[in-house]
C-alpha cells in the first residue's frame, strides 16, 4: 500500500462476517456499507462529521463513518445497526427505544443506538448527565431527546435487572 492507488482491495470484518472487496480510495465507510454491502441501516446526513447519523462501531469504538475512507479500515471490525440487531426481534436497547417512543422519523436512530450501546458498555448505570453528554454528538432533527434519554435509562435499568 505504499504506492498511491485510486482503488484498493481491503479485508475487514463487517458484523462478524469476513469481507474482501475492492473499493475506490474516495469511498467513505458509510457509502461502502450502504452501497457495496447493502447495509442501508447506516444513515448519511451531513457528510462532514456534525450530525452523527452515520455513527457505527469500529473495533468497538463509536466513529463517524462519513469521516473514514473504507480503505483505511483494512483489518478492522465494523459493527453497524444490522450487527447490533439480534437475528430474532430487537435488542434490549432497541426495544427500549420502541417502548419509550424514542424515535419519530427514525433517521438518527441507528447512530443513537450505536452510541447508546457504547455508553452502556462503559457505564452500565449512567447518570442522566452522562447520557446527555454521550448523545450530544447525535442530532435528532425531530428534537425527541427527552424520550431518547428515557429509553437509554430504561435500557440501563433492564440490564441491571437479573433475568
Amino acid at each position: 500500500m505504499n504506492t498511491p492507488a485510486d482503488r484498493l482491495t481491503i479485508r475487514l470484518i463487517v458484523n462478524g462476517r469476513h469481507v474482501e472487496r475492492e473499493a475506490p480510495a474516495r469511498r467513505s465507510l458509510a457509502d461502502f456499507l450502504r452501497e457495496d454491502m447493502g447495509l442501508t441501516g447506516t444513515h448519511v446526513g451531513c457528510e462532514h462529521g456534525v450530525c452523527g447519523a452515520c455513527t457505527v462501531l469500529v473495533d468497538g469504538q463509536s466513529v463517524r463513518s462519513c469521516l473514514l475512507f473504507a480503505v483505511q479500515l483494512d483489518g478492522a471490525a465494523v459493527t453497524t445497526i444490522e450487527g447490533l440487531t439480534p437475528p430474532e426481534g430487537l435488542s434490549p436497547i432497541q426495544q427500549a427505544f420502541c417502548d419509550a417512543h424514542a424515535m419519530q422519523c427514525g433517521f438518527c436512530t441507528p447512530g443513537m443506538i450505536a452510541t447508546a450501546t457504547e455508553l452502556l458498555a462503559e457505564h452500565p448505570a449512567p447518570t442522566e448527565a452522562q447520557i446527555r453528554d454521550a448523545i450530544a454528538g447525535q442530532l435528532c432533527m425531530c428534537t425527541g431527546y427527552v424520550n431518547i434519554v428515557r429509553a437509554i435509562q430504561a435500557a440501563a435499568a433492564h440490564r441491571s435487572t437479573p433475568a
Partner: protein
Amino acid sequence: MKPAPFRYARPATLDEALSLLNSGGQDVKVLAGGQSLVPMMNLRLLRPTVLVDLNGLPGLDRITPRPDGGISIGALVRHERLAQDPRVREHTPVLAEAARHVGHAAIRHRGTLGGSLAHADPAAELPAALLALDAQLILHGSRGPRTVVAADFFQGLLTTALAPDEILTEVRVPAHGRGWGFAEVARRSGDFALAGVVAVLDRPAGSAGSCVSARIVGFGVGDQPVRFLEAERVLTSARPDPALAAAAVTCDPPADVHASAAYRRHLAAVLTEDAVSQALARLDDGGRA
C-alpha cells in the same frame, strides 16, 4: 458531499512517507485521524490528489516518559487516549483535561494530537494547551528532523511552521506542577469553544506570594492561540489575584454568527479568572499536602 477523487497510500516507514510527500508537492496531504481533513475534503474545500495515510507507520502512537520528567507523545496518539492515559494524566494533567474537551467521543476516537496541531484551528484546545506548556514539536523532513517550540509553530489561521514536505512525528511536553487550570465555553457539549483559557502557574510550595512562572493562553479569541502576557505579568509581579489577572486580559477576537467580538472578549476575561482560580487552588492544595 463526496470528496474529489484522489489516490491513497499507506507507507510502512517514515522514509517512504517522506518520499511520497516529496513526489507530489502541494497536492499531497497527510492523513492522520482525518477528523478535520476529511470534512474539508467532503466540502471540497481541499482537493488533494494523493493522501498519505500515516497509520501504517510504527511507533507514532507511543507515549514515553522522558528522563527530564517530561513526556514524549507520538503524533498519532488519539484524543481519547490522551485524555485517559495514566502517564499523560500524571505528567501533564492539563493536556489530558484539554483532550477531554475535544469534540465528541466519536471524534476523539479517531482524531490525533499531531492532526490537531498541524490543522491549527484557532478554537482548538490542544494547540493552546501545548503553547501554555511550552512544548517542543519534532518535524521530520527530507533534510532530517528539526525541533520547533509551540510559540514558533503556530503562525496564524490554519497556518503552522510545518513545510509541505514535513511530517510532525512527536511532541515533547515538559512536566508541570499542580498549578493548572482549564476553562472553556461552548454552545453545546462537544462543539468548538466560543472561547477558552489554559493557565499553567508555578510558585514555591507553601508560598502565597507571586508566581515564579505563569503562562496563560486563550483559544477561540484570535487567529491562533494567544498568550495573555499582561495577565501573566500580574501573576508574577504581585500576590496572585485571579480578578486582577482577568482585568489585564487583552485580545482581539473574531465575531461570527455564534458570538460577537465583545462577548468573546468578555469570555476571555471570565475564563481567565476561572482557570487562574483553579490553578491557585491546586497550588494551595499541594502546599498543604
